[in-house]
């Protein structure tokens, strides 16, 4: 009975540790986490009392505890694959921790592991150390674990399963002997090395992904800045030319050659046509952006229609304005180019104290939209898929909202931006 009690006590520490891992990996299920723990605790205790009389590390012990951990996952969230993964992780962590703790303390005290587990203080200390370490690791790793890609996760799970099996075998053979302590330590070093590898690998992966996205964003911004700079240079050149044209017209008029001046002006008028803005919203930057997009649409064989109002007081800052319209129109033109007929319509109207932006484009195939979610990107390159997220962020910053729909061969984005009020 005494032995049974200490096995149960040891299991209680591991039970709490297993719950820590499962809550971290699976999240909440139908019940809140605290309620799930309250339901599981008596069930765990009951099963321990009824069927807990087993030889530690035996096949029966491993199967019994695996089933209990699997049953516990039912009260948490996650898919069946995630539940299975959580059970494997629990097994690896608990066995490794038990082996490491047992092997190390037994080695330092010159006793066997079996003798060590007969001491109540060892069991208590083990439970406390295990849970404290897990809690610390959980807080340290929570930001990185989400960024591990699925292939890496699958490989990691396979590797951890092998380590779990190795730990079971080692623990079984070493329970009554002191000769295996060094082997256990080697095994534990392997586990630590593996964990360190995963941590470092994840950190580098996350940083590489962040760097890649930042680079893509920088490239986009650079392209836009270049376009604006080019527009500025063109403007300067045109101003220079305008001065020359004025000189030429003055020359004709001074000579009294009105017909010559008229003819000259007609020629100039047609020559500058290609560089002219295609819209006049009284917002020069928006005119430049929309004209650029119009020409881009023309190159892609897309008919871009505008229905605009006076946008001189449009409340977005310059960078936000470029982000909003370049992203929306780039996406729309790209999608419409594959549709038949290729059409995009941009409508901006001021109504009831807000500006309404509607971008509609034809699509070749319907786009499945989930409520409250942005559609998935169809491009694999880094930076793609961020467009609508950036648009959403701009609108939210200004207290606006947006809606997406796709029906009858049209994809439609509608956003609202409240009019700017106040002294600014």
């Amino acid at each position, binding site marked *: 009975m005494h032995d049974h009690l200490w096995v149960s006590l040891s299991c209680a520490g591991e039970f709490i540790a297993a719950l820590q891992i499962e809550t971290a990996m699976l999240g909440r299920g139908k019940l809140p986490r605290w309620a799930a723990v309250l339901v599981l605790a008596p069930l765990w205790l009951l099963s321990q009392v009824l069927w807990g009389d087993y030889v530690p590390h035996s096949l029966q012990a491993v199967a019994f505890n695996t089933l209990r951990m699997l049953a516990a996952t039912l009260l948490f969230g996650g898919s069946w694959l995630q539940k299975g993964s959580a059970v494997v992780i629990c097994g690896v962590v608990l066995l490794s921790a038990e082996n490491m703790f047992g092997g190390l303390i037994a080695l330092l005290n010159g006793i066997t592991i079996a003798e060590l587990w007969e001491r109540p203080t060892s069991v208590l200390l083990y439970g406390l150390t295990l849970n404290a370490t897990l809690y610390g690791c959980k807080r340290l790793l929570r930001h990185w674990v989400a960024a591990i890609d699925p292939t890496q996760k699958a490989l990691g799970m396979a590797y951890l399963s092998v380590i779990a099996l190795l730990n079971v075998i080692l623990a079984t053979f070493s329970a009554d002997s002191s000769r295996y302590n060094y082997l256990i330590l080697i095994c534990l070093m392997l586990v630590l090395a593996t964990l360190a590898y995963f941590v470092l690998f994840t950190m580098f992966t996350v940083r590489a992904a962040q760097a890649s996205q930042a680079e893509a964003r920088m490239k986009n911004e650079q392209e836009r800045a270049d376009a604006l700079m080019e527009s500025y240079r063109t403007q300067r050149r045109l101003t220079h030319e305008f001065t020359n044209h004025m000189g030429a017209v003055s020359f004709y008029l001074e000579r009294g050659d009105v017909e010559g001046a008229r003819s000259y002006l007609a020629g100039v008028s047609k020559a500058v046509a290609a560089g002219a803005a295609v819209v006049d919203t009284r917002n020069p930057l928006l005119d430049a952006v929309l004209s650029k997009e119009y020409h881009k649409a023309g190159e892609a064989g897309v008919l871009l229609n505008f229905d605009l109002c006076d946008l001189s007081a449009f409340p977005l800052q310059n960078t936000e304005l470029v982000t909003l319209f370049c992203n929306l129109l780039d996406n729309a033109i790209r999608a419409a180019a594959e549709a038949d*007929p290729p059409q995009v319509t941009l409508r901006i109207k001021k109504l009831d104290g807000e500006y309404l932006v509607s971008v509609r484009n034809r699509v070749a195939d319907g786009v499945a939209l989930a409520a409250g979610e942005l559609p998935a990107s169809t491009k694999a390159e880094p930076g793609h898929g961020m467009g609508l997220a950036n648009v959403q962020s701009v609108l939210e910053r200004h207290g606006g909202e947006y809606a997406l729909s796709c029906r009858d061969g049209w994809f439609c984005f*509608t956003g609202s931006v409240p009019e700017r009020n106040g002294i600014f």
Partner: protein
Amino acid sequence: MKLLICDDDLIFAERVRDAAVPFFEAKNVPVECQVYGSAEELLAVPGLEQCQLALLDVDLVTANGIELGRILKQKNPHMLLVYVSAYLEFAPQGYTVSAFRYILKGDLRQMLPLCLEDAYQALYGAECALTVEFNRESRKIPYDDIYSLESEGRRVLVFGAEPHKPLCAYYAKLSELPAGLFANGFVRVGRSAVVNMRYIQRIANYKVRMRSGVELSVSRSSYAEVRGVYLEWKGRFGDA
């Protein structure tokens, strides 16, 4: 349908007519098309206010096509103006007269059919009246006259601008309302009400406030969807 074409390049104007007239006739719309080579010639014609669609050149020899469009709009504000020009530089001015489309002559073959289709939809898109059996006779109520439809028992009450005073009531269910109604700016806001988005003042706190002052409840489950549909409608048609 009365169609006007004005271009100083008469050969080009004939090309436009040869594309436009068969397009509408194929859709069973009889077309009365007149081609003019100058703005003066066009403006001298009586009955311009009857015209529904005008395809105009911007760069006319003796007049400005934009000014011509402005005069035509004054005669008939519902007239659709389509500018056909060789120059993109005039496009911004087109928006000052609410041009329906601006087409480059170089893109005519590709763009004109799309433009005509849009014009057809705008002019003849759908029937814009609700047919109801009321007092043993069939009656058509224009969509624009309807603010909301509310179910009361086995009847549907049709409300207009005057609050709490239905235009009529007839035996039907809201679920049996024609699809055309919803394609023309109506949205269901709950189990017992359908509203015309044209007359919504605002949607907030699970309520729709109509311009007539009437407030209707929006079901919690469809609140986000109703707001999204209304936002999309405002984006497409608001202030039209």
